[in-house]
């Protein structure tokens, strides 16, 4: 709605205006949050890079005394952890948050406040992890934190806890990004951008978001179990009490391997974006690159055990995972051939972004080759834990992520700044990095083959390792210099670079449709797209859109808005009001940090207070969401009229809820798998003391009550929808009452069964399953109370019922997983002559 006499563009600028001064940090829009995200990621990269240089200094020559063994352990752990989880994954999320909305042609993704909360959690989590340098107990167990080394016995200090703390925050920000990206990519695109016209970057981030959805939950579970072992002495990983250290390895690598592709796929997509622009022609085999992206994403879930080849696992696991690891080279190969075919016969412009792309191709192919080598088990047995592996994964990670990323930063730099980075300096930074990189890491292959182990703080002379190490160290400083030059170029060009003007690279995708720098509103209007390269194929229409002559050229509701479209064909479905500036996400992130930070120091009172405040803030946030603008339908231009509110299964809010539940469900599946795994490694399960401890009747009664609770919630919501207002309090109230009864009887049954969780992994796992259900019943209860309060305040009606739908979903999920846990306990066949936990 514009004020009288205000043009559409003025109205847009008003509602999207970024706050000034310190209030700038209350902004939630992608153009601001994306930038902070990028800046923070690069900051952490710099820190981890300095740590790398320290290590290379120490390794430069035999018997250097610069870093002692303990310091070296800490430094490689922090370097690896920061690079992998605090830099590489988040910076890819940052690129997505910043660039995707523009590239998809919309003003913003649907949940800017959530993205922003994710950013603040990420920033605080990274800083908390770094703060271990101030407090002393720096994580020192390696970036994969293997048990039992990381367990309570061998790491009694807080080192591991700091690591777990940092990872918790990365998990939170990853969930936020995952919801935002899946729903955003599927539901907010320019009209007409059907999936077949979606750029590769969109496909890559969609794939990556789905991978996060299934890869991060097992890690989350592992973190919880490890922390429980450390703080409560629940022996999940303690072989003496029925646990197994390999359980940690499985949970970690089920995350850790896909993570590598979570980093690589966006990098590859940046290449697929930059390459066609500089060759001035479409990517050859666009759909094969889409196929390869999706296939890589899914195949990468079948590789995790290749990190455990030396752990003493069965022969068949070795060969299965070896085969799968080689198979994944096929889709990567498809991408490489598509790039080569695009290059073939083209006359590319050799500007800095293109140089980085070529650097990527060279380095990544070498890394891929050594990857196929280590996928072969006998070879891996020779080189595992040597510097050969260090060389391999830096070739893939730096080749696959850093080079494309730096190319992409140069490429998209005009969007925020309106300027180009300096070309000459850019070329210098590239060549320093390229040469420095190879001089550092190529010799490490040889060192590895000569037998130099990784993770050793020094080595004796006379083994022929000196000169190679010295070369590598010199290379590392050259590489470091290249990075420093790149950063200096960024800083200098920000204010003083050459003005970029409109579409400086003659690109075909929508982020270049308007002027640079981007306006706060992200464009004067939203175009209708008919091609994969709208700027190449429909230039007149795009120019008109940039003048504000297409859709949504004025805010039709009072606030910031973005367009929701149908998932596949991208037909307009709804104008969504998105959040504007505010502090609740910053406050919630701070409270979350207090909660987990204090918990790490075992300051339980403070942690609990932080938890309560977090909960209160999230409740307030939920209270203010799902509001309906006063106008039911609005005209977005060209005669298209869409609703401003929808509470059905096509709604972005519903999709978000489903994604959240899938994440949770994946965590639950990981828990069940852990249970099965422990059952497999234990000769008798459950162990004799717990055989027949629970009456079957008790379990059946508990299961029945869970089902009743879900049915009550459904019935209440269903009747309410048909206009019976009383049914909502009756149904949800009934469900809450039943939940309280289930919790009570469940807890007393478990206590009576004498399931002391510190005695054995079996009772500990049973307790985790029970607590899982209790927590979910608690969440469902809170949601029910929230809905009832909203109903009392007139915010929930039979039409405006999205929160009701979500609440019912929460009840379904709690009941379903609870029933599954009970079925598992009762039915999972007892072995070794045992009779199971139930008396029949």
């Amino acid at each position: 709605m514009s004020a009288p006499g205000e043009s559409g563009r003025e109205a847009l600028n008003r509602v999207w205006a970024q706050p000034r001064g310190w209030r700038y940090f209350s902004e939630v829009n992608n153009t601001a949050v994306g930038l902070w995200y990028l800046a923070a990621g690069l900051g952490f990269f710099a820190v981890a890079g300095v740590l790398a240089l320290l290590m290379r200094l120490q390794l430069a020559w035999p018997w250097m005394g610069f870093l002692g063994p303990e310091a070296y352990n800490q430094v490689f752990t922090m370097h690896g952890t920061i690079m992998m989880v605090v830099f590489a994954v988040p910076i890819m999320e940052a690129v997505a948050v910043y660039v995707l909305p523009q590239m998809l042609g919309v003003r913003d993704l649907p949940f800017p406040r959530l993205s922003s909360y994710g950013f603040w959690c990420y920033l605080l989590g990274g800083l908390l992890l770094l703060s271990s340098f101030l407090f002393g107990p720096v994580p020192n167990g390696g970036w994969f934190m293997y048990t039992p080394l990381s367990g309570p016995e061998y790491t009694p200090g807080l080192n591991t806890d700091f690591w777990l703390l940092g990872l918790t925050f990365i998990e939170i920000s990853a969930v936020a990004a995952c919801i935002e990206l899946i729903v955003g990519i599927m539901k907010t695109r320019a009209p007409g951008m059907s999936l077949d016209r979606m750029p590769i970057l969109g496909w890559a981030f969609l794939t990556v978001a789905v991978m996060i959805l299934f890869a991060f939950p097992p890690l989350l579970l592992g973190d919880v179990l490890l922390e429980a072992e450390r703080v409560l002495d629940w022996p999940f990983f303690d072989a003496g009490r029925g646990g197994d250290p390999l359980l940690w390895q499985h949970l970690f690598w089920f995350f850790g391997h896909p993570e590598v592709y979570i980093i690589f796929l966006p990098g590859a997509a940046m290449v697929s974006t930059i390459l066609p622009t500089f060759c001035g022609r479409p990517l050859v085999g666009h759909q094969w690159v889409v196929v390869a992206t999706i296939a890589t994403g899914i195949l990468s879930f079948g590789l995790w055990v290749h990190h455990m080849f030396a752990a003493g696992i069965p022969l068949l696991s070795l060969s299965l995972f070896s085969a799968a690891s080689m198979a994944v080279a096929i889709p990567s190969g498809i991408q490489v051939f598509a790039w080569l075919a695009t290059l073939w016969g083209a006359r590319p412009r050799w500007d800095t972004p293109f140089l980085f792309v070529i650097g990527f191709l060279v380095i990544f192919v070498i890394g891929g080759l050594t990857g196929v080598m280590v996928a072969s088990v006998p070879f891996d047995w020779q080189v595992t834990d040597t510097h050969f592996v260090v060389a391999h994964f830096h070739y893939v990670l730096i080749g696959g992520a850093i080079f494309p990323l730096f190319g992409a930063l140069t490429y998209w730099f005009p969007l925020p700044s309106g300027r180009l980075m300096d070309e000459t300096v850019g070329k210098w930074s590239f060549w320093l990095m390229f040469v420095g990189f190879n001089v550092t890491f190529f010799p490490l292959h040889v060192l590895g083959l000569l037998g130099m182990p990784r993770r050793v703080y020094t080595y004796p002379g006379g083994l022929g390792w000196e000169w190679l190490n010295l070369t590598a160290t010199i290379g590392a400083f050259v590489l470091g210099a290249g990075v420093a030059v790149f950063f200096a170029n960024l800083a200098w060009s920000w204010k003083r670079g050459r003005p970029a003007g409109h579409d400086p690279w003659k690109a075909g995708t929508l982020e270049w449709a308007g002027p640079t720098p981007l306006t706060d509103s992200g464009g004067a209007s939203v175009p209708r797209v008919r091609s994969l390269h709208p700027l190449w194929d429909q230039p007149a229409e795009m120019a008109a859109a940039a003048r504000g002559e297409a859709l949504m050229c004025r805010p039709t509701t009072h606030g910031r808005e973005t367009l929701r479209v149908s998932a596949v064909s991208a037909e307009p479905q709804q104008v969504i009001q998105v959040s504007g500036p505010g502090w609740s996400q910053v406050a919630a992130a701070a409270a979350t940090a207090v909660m987990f930070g204090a918990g790490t120091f075992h300051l339980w009172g403070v942690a609990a207070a932080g938890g309560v405040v977090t909960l209160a803030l999230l409740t307030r946030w939920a209270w203010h969401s799902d509001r309906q603008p006063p106008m039911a339908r609005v005209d977005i231009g060209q005669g298209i009229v869409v609703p401003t509110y929808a509470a059905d299964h096509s709604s972005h809010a519903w999709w978000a809820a489903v994604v959240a539940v899938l994440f949770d469900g994946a965590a639950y599946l990981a828990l069940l798998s852990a249970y099965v795994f422990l059952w497999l490694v234990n000769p008798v399960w459950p162990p004799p003391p717990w055989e027949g401890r629970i009456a079957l009747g008790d379990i059946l009664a508990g299961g029945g009550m869970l089902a009743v609770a879900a049915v009550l919630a459904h019935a209440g919501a269903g009747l309410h929808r048909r206009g019976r207002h009383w049914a909502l309090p009756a149904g949800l109230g009934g469900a809450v009452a039943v939940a309280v009864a289930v919790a009570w009887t469940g807890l007393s049954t478990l206590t009576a069964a004498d399931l002391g969780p510190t005695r054995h992994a079996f009772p500990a796992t049973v307790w985790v399953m029970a607590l899982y259900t209790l927590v979910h019943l608690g969440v469902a209860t809170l949601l029910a109370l929230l809905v009832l309060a909203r109903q009392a305040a007139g915010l929930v009606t039979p039409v405006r019922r999205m929160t009701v739908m979500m609440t019912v979903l929460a009840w379904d999920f709690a009941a379903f997983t609870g029933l599954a846990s009970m079925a598992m306990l009762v039915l999972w066949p007892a072995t070794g002559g045992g009779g199971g936990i139930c008396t029949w």
Partner: protein
Amino acid sequence: MVSLRDATLVVAAPGLWFGYFLLVYGVHALACRFLWPSGPVLAAVTALTAAALAAEAWPLRRLARIEPAGFYRAAGLGLGALSLLATLWVAATSWMVPPCG
């Protein structure tokens, strides 16, 4: 118009492969623990997966009519073919290597 269901079908094949992969892994783990013969189960699972992957080509044919550019059909067939290849590849290894030990 290409529906969400069609699009899901297009990306279903690698999911099938993953399910297959986990099944093979799981069946072997159980078989080695309890000394069951795993061969017949594996043969059946492999045949089923391969059949399901091949059967996917049929509904994809319909897409050829509603979508002239061929994107979804090509993507569906490409993913199907890759998944089939990966399935046979995994099956071959699980046949050639003695499972337990």
